């Protein structure tokens, strides 16, 4: 297959939709209203149908007005019913959006001869056909869908920039925002109207399912990757664009490899967005699943290494270390447990231990490290016994645990508070 200008336009249109949705989605997610985006993207259906029926045309303006009104109605109904019926918002959202969507379906079927609207088109659109319908601007043929969604993106961007700090504040703490005189109700309804309008702009080309995916998934990825709102918005836009291009390419290319025709681009974009999320979820450097697991492994390794250093040093203290320790003696170092062998391996890499003829001993460098850890450990023991009033026979496990984490400022502070001690509560010497 070849990539044509059509494909480029499809991807561009998709990117524009993805960016307008992702932009708003950030605020939805921070207000814990992601599912409100889901609800509104369903409820615009009756709004559209009503606009068709009333005006009898496919004009853009009535469609937008219908959608915005229905978006506001959805937001209002959810709030009012959950307040007056003391029902939780999730349930009420379910009640409201299914009811309105059912109403929309019924209207479509009833007015099938008057309304040229296919319900499945509302769900997953026909982005593949958008490049056919063009308007010539400044000598270029630009698909109408790209124009509509481009303008929508512009409107969203302008409003978000204008009200950036208000959106930020109401998303973070609505009550506080109100106390500062920010009308958080107004901001809420403004956001909902924008979501509804974006849905309408997008539905013809990509359908509501992609709207939901782009409202929610790119901001979720961004949330896992950054901690600042401005950075989050930027990242979510990039993820949106990547999903659009990747999604269309995948929809065309992957089925081809299996000997099939190309598949739905909207579905492909949602799927690729999902894959990007999966990647971020697994690999995000700070919060990714792998990072979390790896962090735990490294920590266990560090614990084991510190335990082993302590064991070596105590053996040294007892004397008889000239020949080093045998594996069997090492095996009794229960504290290191499963991690003993990996830790020994790491220690050898770091030049802290050496092995000769099956016996292990500390290198001079290792001895220094061990001495330092033992000092920390015993200082903690004295500190816990003297300052925290713990019984001397009980301080060992606590001191070990604290020792694992004692570095930098805490180590200096420990020196200051307990550094004068010469001997630990078990009357063993504290090495310098």
């Amino acid at each position: 297959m070849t990539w044509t200008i059509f494909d480029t336009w499809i991807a561009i249109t998709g990117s524009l939709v993805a960016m307008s949705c992702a932009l708003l989605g950030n605020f939805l997610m921070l207000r814990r209203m992601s599912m409100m985006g889901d609800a509104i993207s369903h409820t615009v259906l009756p709004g559209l149908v009503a606009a068709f029926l009333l005006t009898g045309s496919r004009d853009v303006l009535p469609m937008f007005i219908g959608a915005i009104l229905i978006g506001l109605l959805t937001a209002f109904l959810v709030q009012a019913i959950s307040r007056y019926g003391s029902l939780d918002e999730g349930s009420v959202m379910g009640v409201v959006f299914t009811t309105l969507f059912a109403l929309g379906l019924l209207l479509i079927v009833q007015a099938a001869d008057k309304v040229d609207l296919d319900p499945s088109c509302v769900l997953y659109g026909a982005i593949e056909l958008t490049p056919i319908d063009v308007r010539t601007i400044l000598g270029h043929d630009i698909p109408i869908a790209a124009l509509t969604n481009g303008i929508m993106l512009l409107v969203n961007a302008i409003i978000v920039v204008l009200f950036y700090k208000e959106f930020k504040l109401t998303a973070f703490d609505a009550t506080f925002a109100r106390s500062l005189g920010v009308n958080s109700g107004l901001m809420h309804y403004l956001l909902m109207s924008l979501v509804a309008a974006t849905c309408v702009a997008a539905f013809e080309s990509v359908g509501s399912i992609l709207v939901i995916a782009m409202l929610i998934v790119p901001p979720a990825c961004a949330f896992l990757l950054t901690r600042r709102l401005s950075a989050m918005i930027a990242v979510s836009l990039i993820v949106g664009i990547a999903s659009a291009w990747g999604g269309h390419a995948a929809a065309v290319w992957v089925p081809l490899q299996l000997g099939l025709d190309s598949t739905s681009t909207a579905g492909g974009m949602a799927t690729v967005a999902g894959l990007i999320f999966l990647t971020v979820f697994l690999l995000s450097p700070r919060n990714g699943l792998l990072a979390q697991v790896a962090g735990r492994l490294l920590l266990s390794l560090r614990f084991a290494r510190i335990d082993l250093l302590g064991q070596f040093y105590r053996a040294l203290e007892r004397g008889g270390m000239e020949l080093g320790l045998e594996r069997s003696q090492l095996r009794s170092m229960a504290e290191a447990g499963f991690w003993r062998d990996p830790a020994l391996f790491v220690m050898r890499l770091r030049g802290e231990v050496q092995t000769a003829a099956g016996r292990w001993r500390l290198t001079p460098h290792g001895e220094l490290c061990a001495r330092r850890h033992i000092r920390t450990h015993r200082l903690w023991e004295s500190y816990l016994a003297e300052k925290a009033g713990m019984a001397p026979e009980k301080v060992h496990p606590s001191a070990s645990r604290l020792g694992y984490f004692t570095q930098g400022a805490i180590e200096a502070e420990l020196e200051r508070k307990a550094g004068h001690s010469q001997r630990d509560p078990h009357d063993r010497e504290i090495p310098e």
Partner: protein
Amino acid sequence: MNEALRVLLLQDYNTRLVVIGTAMLGGAAGLAGTFLMLRKRALLGDAVAHATLPGVVLTFILLALTGGNPRSLPWLLGGAAVFGTLGMLTVVLIRRWSRLKDDTALGIVLSVFFGFGVCLLSIASRLEGVNAAGLSSFIYGKTASMLMIDAVLIGGVALTIVAVVAVFYKELKLLCFDQDFAASQGLPVLALDVVLMGLIVAATVIGLQSVGLILVVALLVIPPAAARCWTHRLNRMLVLSAGIGAASGLFGSALSALAANLPAGAIIVLVAASLFLLSFFVGSERGVLWRLIRRWRLEREVGMQHLLRAVWELAEKEAGPGRIGEGAVGKERLMQVRSWSGKSLDRLVRRAVREDFLTDTPAGLRLTNRGERNAARHVRNHRLWELFLIRHADTAPSRVDRGADLIEHVLDEDLVAELEAELSANGSQVPVPASPHKVVPT
């Protein structure tokens, strides 16, 4: 008309099948949905439902490619159940291992799984020699094509749901109410949660065919929400919710069988929604109508109390603590005491005159005997409440009930006597003690 009667009386074999099957589905979903709502996870059903699409389509494609019957409902629903469960597990996984909130996790699963399903659907529809048109009925629902074996399957799963709820009723109740306590009692909280989620997947999956995956969540959410408006008892709520669900299924599918252009899924949901609206307004426990009437009555009652008290207290200022003498009170002075508008005060005064609390004399307003008795009671109550709030500031706010007719109805007599004694010690007479603070027009 004759046709309608035939349908409603279930005389037609196929209609009977469809209607009974959908009614059972509605009942079962109503039961499962009640616990889901009480566990505050109502929208989980939505995510599960959307997540089933790839399961259905994938099964369809596999059946078509291997030469099976790609329209076999048991297989398709089996595939749906697998992916529904997968979707639910993904929600749990995201919640457990990332900082994302519940709603975001639901949205991700919902849209990505569904998007993937749409891809597969598009592929399935272009498979050679296979007609995939029936698959879209899983999205919007279509009851008419139900076969005997389908109805039996749906009915069987529905009965299983009912049985599981009956067997684990009290354990599920405790799980939803107080998870910590349930754990402290040694209940396997995790296993019970799995049972509950299993119920949700089962109810969703059997609803796919008749209601469609976009709207099936309605059967999980709307009946419990409607039932909640009628009762404060869980057992009644379950019965009601199942009843409302069954009624929606029954009337919805019967109605849609009447005419060709009534899509079953939408009609079932709209019937359920009308039942919800009805419950929301006139439900005996939380009906908004009753609540509004109650509030309107209370406002009237409180307005009258304020008027009588204000007249009494202004008269007291003239006559000395605890007495009101014969003094009349002008409306201008009343206007100063409270934020009445001239109009609302006039209306209030007219009502007070009509009810024989006040007489409107040229010198001003004067309390009648009946009005004086009433006013004295309100003044006394008000002052005792105020003193109570001052003396027991730490715990009082939770007990104050100004709407109570007499303070004794809320606080016990010893406490009231104590408060009364304290008030009269400040130099005033019972039955109507002096106000703890001066009455000043503001």
